[in-house]
């Protein structure tokens, strides 16, 4: 067929003034603005658009909407390649590039189609039954199975587009903008309520856009336009086209994905590609319509077999005839309307094959009256043609619908339009927790009892007539607004054509053919996952009778369409096979998303640099300029070391450590947590949360504290200083700043509300600069006039306030390096100035900034622990040699009882020790290495413990390590072994302090 041949000369909602070019599988085509890729392909006579998942059968376009199982294409190239998109939902834009998938070398000639020939060996679950021998060969088989996996291909480069999230609150959310949804939005919107109306299609109107109905005497689409105009003008109403509600969560939270820019050939600057709206609605109206069901007959998957209503949509909305000559195959009245529409649009209707023996009713009569050939009590028992339909075989059904071999007739056609009834779109209702009811007449699950504040209206609620849809919508919209506190009323119904009566449907879930089902050809139920009626019967025969087993064994409904067209038929066939009713069988669970949502949109804007806040200290700028190498510690980015030209980490760290030991080092300690504790009961409170005692701590003095959890294990540590009689400053580890505050707040608010204590985080109020090393005092003396730095006037573990370099500060004489240290606390905005001042004056003293790594070495030399490194949530104070810090005499403190449990008192617990390596070992042990008594034993080896910290110590001139070792303190001098992957290292247990054990430097 040549291009454009099936496009009707007039009509449709496309913009003929805007022709667009696009490419499919390398060939150029044209379409119009307003087309979908599917409508444009159909207009160009393209039928074969894809290959099925398992058997690689040729497939065409089945539907006109979100339910499409077949026409999946890849869009774009390279970084923007996107697989598995439904051609029926892709809005055409100029220059669009699409291609078919899951075929090789080409769509037309696909080697994978061999699977179709071998399909007898590949029934449901075949892989569970084979590929087991020889045992080691699964990997080999899997290699081939994986090759066949998947449909489209992922992009090859990072996604260059941006996505957004947005929170929205409204009184009434209406999902679906067909007649029901629009009527609901009008009723609610007019009351002044905040209303959001969303629809997944580019154009709102739902079924009315393809309808021949007259409303108020004019085409239905005119009513739509008028209503949307009114809604658009209401200030509190938000219209969201191209927006799919994909998830219904607790407490009326509905997630909607809006395709903001996908339809634009050249999106505007700053525009996100897609946006996920997190809507919190006081009330929700679901007006999501219904999906037409296919019929299950032999080879019902041939390109050219379509849903009847889809053909109508293509004709009316896109002015495309889906073919030239169609056979309609139906079990209900709706197809008759479609047939008349299609004929009016110029399609040749060869026949209407109706499963019902004696269809009566106004619609049938009308069709007959217009000369359509109606073949009642008959069925399409097979489809001819492979890559395109060339005809059908029709036969009369036996009374018991067994095998149909009477009155066989071939009818030539290029299109088969099937109509198996309607499935209400209850996905969101069901996700919300709503209970379903099975309606036998229409063989459909419909909403029964809602468990959230929502209402259903229109076809998704089981309504079929336009009048009912409009009335239900208006009533639901008004009631929803009333519930939200607005004076709303349902507007009167517009004037409509009189309703036609409808004859009952006939449910024949598997249409027989001239051979037993499964013996010849295939009766597809789930087109996307290639599940046939025979597969379902096989599964039930093998005992997979729960609908959930059926689903998982056959993969029915597990494709990208999530079974939108296959669900009911699968249940019904299972019900028949197990002699159960459909409601007894039940449905599988509806889960978000309603249709697949890009992972980019779910991620939103917080990717890359916005993934997680990077927290910087007030001195960060200097670290950056100096070329520091940074380390992530939680959200903080801290300087790890400051390499000079040509230095690697080891060289830099060694230099920094030596300087801090021999001269003076400068360290940015701003990240330590700081909690301001005020109130008359502050000391009592601290007595309760720390193991040690605070009541007697003098004002201006500091003390190191250990904090346990109730179970007795160490939670945090830090130095706390008494600033006043009722005022303390607690410091916490950097990583625990927020959790510790919250832990303390919890206790205060819920356990001890009688204590008069107030906690405020002041972590960020202050920058902290540490001067450490023998020259620290001389250096600082040059910067301050108002603080007497002499050891007598300013002893270890005390605090002085004053100025340094003219900056108001608090100076703490605490030390984490084991050397003479001053921790200077200034207002955050003064931090950098303070740092610069220290550097400037310190030059002559050889001041050297040191980073986190050197700090770790310095403290390890001294044997100071780091919570989270020496401890792992299973260490007690005694394990760390800090048993003396536990004031057992206190009547209570957090962890007191926990410490008394058998496990925590057990001898043989791991204890903190130091390790020195055998002579000649220059490389530090890897942190995490385990120690054993006898490295000669085969695994599993009894292990004694592990290395928690390990460094090369410039001060000692050799590697040192801290370790937690079973009964470690009793092992002083023992030789242990660390078996590493490449060698065994011998280590001697020593005290966990390698530098100045008497503390002369500290107190000096």
């Amino acid at each position: 067929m040549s291009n454009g041949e099936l496009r009707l000369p007039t009509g449709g909602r496309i913009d003929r003034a805007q022709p667009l070019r696009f490419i499919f599988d390398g060939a150029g085509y044209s379409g119009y603005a307003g087309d979908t890729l599917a409508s444009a392909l159909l207009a160009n006579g393209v039928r074969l658009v894809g290959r099925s998942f398992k058997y690689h059968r040729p497939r065409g376009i089945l539907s006109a909407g979100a339910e499409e199982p077949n026409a999946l294409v890849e869009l774009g190239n390279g970084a923007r390649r996107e697989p598995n998109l439904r051609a029926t939902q892709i809005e055409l834009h100029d220059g669009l590039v699409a291609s078919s998938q899951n075929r090789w070398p080409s769509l037309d000639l696909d080697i994978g189609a061999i699977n179709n020939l071998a399909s007898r060996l590949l029934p449901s679950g075949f892989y569970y039954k084979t590929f087991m021998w020889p045992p080691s060969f699964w990997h080999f088989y899997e290699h081939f199975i994986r090759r066949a996996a998947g449909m489209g291909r992922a992009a090859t480069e990072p996604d260059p587009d941006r996505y957004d999230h947005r929170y929205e609150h409204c009184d009434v959310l209406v999902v679906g903008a067909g007649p029901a949804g629009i009527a609901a939005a009008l009723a609610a919107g007019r009351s002044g309520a905040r209303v959001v109306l969303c629809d997944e299609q580019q154009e709102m109107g739902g079924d009315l856009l393809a309808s021949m109905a007259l409303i108020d005497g004019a085409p239905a689409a005119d009513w739509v336009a008028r209503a949307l105009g009114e809604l658009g003008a209401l200030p509190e109403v938000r219209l969201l086209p191209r927006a799919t509600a994909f998830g219904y969560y607790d407490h009326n939270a509905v997630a909607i994905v809006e395709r903001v820019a996908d339809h634009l050939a050249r999106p505007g600057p700053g525009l996100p590609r897609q946006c996920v709206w997190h809507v919190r609605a006081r009330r929700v109206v679901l007006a999501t319509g219904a999906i037409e069901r296919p019929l299950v007959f032999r080879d019902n998957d041939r390109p050219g077999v379509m849903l009847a209503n889809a053909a109508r949509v293509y004709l009316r909305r896109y002015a495309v005839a889906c073919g030239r000559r169609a056979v309609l195959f139906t079990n209900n009245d709706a197809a008759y309307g479609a047939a008349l529409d299609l004929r009016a649009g110029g399609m040749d209707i060869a026949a209407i094959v109706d499963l019902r023996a004696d269809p009566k009713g106004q619609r049938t009569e009308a069709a007959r009256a217009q000369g359509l050939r109606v073949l009642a009590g008959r069925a399409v028992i097979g489809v001819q043609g492979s890559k395109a339909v060339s005809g059908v075989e029709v036969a009369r059904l036996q009374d018991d619908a067994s095998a149909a071999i009477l009155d066989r007739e071939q009818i030539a056609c290029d299109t088969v339009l099937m109509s198996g009834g309607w499935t209400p779109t209850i996905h969101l209702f069901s996700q919300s927790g709503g209970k379903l009811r099975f309606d036998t007449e229409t063989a459909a699950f419909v909403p029964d009892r809602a468990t959230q504040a929502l209402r259903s209206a229109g076809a998704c609620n089981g309504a079929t007539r336009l009048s009912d849809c409009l009335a239900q919508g208006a009533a639901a919209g008004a009631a929803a607004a009333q519930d939200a506190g607005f004076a709303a009323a349902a507007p009167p119904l517009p004037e409509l054509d009189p309703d036609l009566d409808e004859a009952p449907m006939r449910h024949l879930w598997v249409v027989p053919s001239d051979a037993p089902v499964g013996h010849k050809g295939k009766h597809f139920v789930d087109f996307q996952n290639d599940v046939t009626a025979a597969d379902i019967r096989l599964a039930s025969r093998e005992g997979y009778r729960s609908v959930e087993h059926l689903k998982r064994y056959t993969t029915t409904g597990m494709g990208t369409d999530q079974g939108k067209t296959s669900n009911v038929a699968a249940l019904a066939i299972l019900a028949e096979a197990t002699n159960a009713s459909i409601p007894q069988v039940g449905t599988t669970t509806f889960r978000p998303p309603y249709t697949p949502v890009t992972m980019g949109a779910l991620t939103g804007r917080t990717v890359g640099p916005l993934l997680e806040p990077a927290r910087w200290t007030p001195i960060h700028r200097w670290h950056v300029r100096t070329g520091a190498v940074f380390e992530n510690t939680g959200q903080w980015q801290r300087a790890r070391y400051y390499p000079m030209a040509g230095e690697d980490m080891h060289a830099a760290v060694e230099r920094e450590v030596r300087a801090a030991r021999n001269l003076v080092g400068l360290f940015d300690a701003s990240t330590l947590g700081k909690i301001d504790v005020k109130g008359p009961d502050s000391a009592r409170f601290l007595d309760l949360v720390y193991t040690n005692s605070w009541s007697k701590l003098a004002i201006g003095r500091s003390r190191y504290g250990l904090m346990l959890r109730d179970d007795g294990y160490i939670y945090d540590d830090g130095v706390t200083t008494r600033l006043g009689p009722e005022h303390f400053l607690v410091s916490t580890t950097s990583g625990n700043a927020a959790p510790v505050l919250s832990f303390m707040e919890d206790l205060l608010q819920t356990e001890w509300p009688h204590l008069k204590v107030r906690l405020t985080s002041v972590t960020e109020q202050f920058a902290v600069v540490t001067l450490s090393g023998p020259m620290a005092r001389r250096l600082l003396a040059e910067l301050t006039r108002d603080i007497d730095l002499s050891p007598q006037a300013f002893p270890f573990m005390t605090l002085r306030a004053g100025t340094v370099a003219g900056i108001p500060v608090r100076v703490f004489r605490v030390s984490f390096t084991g050397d003479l240290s001053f921790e200077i606390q200034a207002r955050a905005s003064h931090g950098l100035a303070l740092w610069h001042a220290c550097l400037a004056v310190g030059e002559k003293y050889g001041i050297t900034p040191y980073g986190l790594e050197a700090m770790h070495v310095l403290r390890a030399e001294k044997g100071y622990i780091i919570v989270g490194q020496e401890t792992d949530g299973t260490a007690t104070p005694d394990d760390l040699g800090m048993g003396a810090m536990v004031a057992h005499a206190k009547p209570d403190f957090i962890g007191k009882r926990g410490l008394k449990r058998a496990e925590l008192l057990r001898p043989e617990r791991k204890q903190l020790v130091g390790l020195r390596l055998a002579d000649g070992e220059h490389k530090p042990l890897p942190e995490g290495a385990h120690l054993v008594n006898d490295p000669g034993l085969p695994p599993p080896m009894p292990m004694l413990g592990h290395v928690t910290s390990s460094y090369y110590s410039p001060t000692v001139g050799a590697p040192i390590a801290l370790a937690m070792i079973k009964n470690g303190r009793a092992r002083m001098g023992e030789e242990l072994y660390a078996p590493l992957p490449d060698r065994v290292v011998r280590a001697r247990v020593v005290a966990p302090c390698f530098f100045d054990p008497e503390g002369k430097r500290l107190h000096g």
Partner: protein
Amino acid sequence: MLLIACPWCGPRAELEFRCGGQGHLTRLTDAMEVSDAEFARYLYMRDNPKGWHYERWNHVNGCRRWFNAVRHTVTHEFHATYKPGEPKPDLPRS
């Protein structure tokens, strides 16, 4: 995506809160007297009903206050949220 009514700030998104597990648990005042088994019960044994649950929440990204709630662990419905110190509300039927 729960909507949680902080007794002070009003209904807010779940994102602002952290759940603190079973409510109305009080620290043992006589911890040193109780047996290991009783202490273990206090530390680790938790109500975990399928149905209404007394629990505590912290409005971490809000007023930082702890409060109590009665929530259904199947429907996730909140029956009540209330301030610490206020009495345990009765459970709704069902």
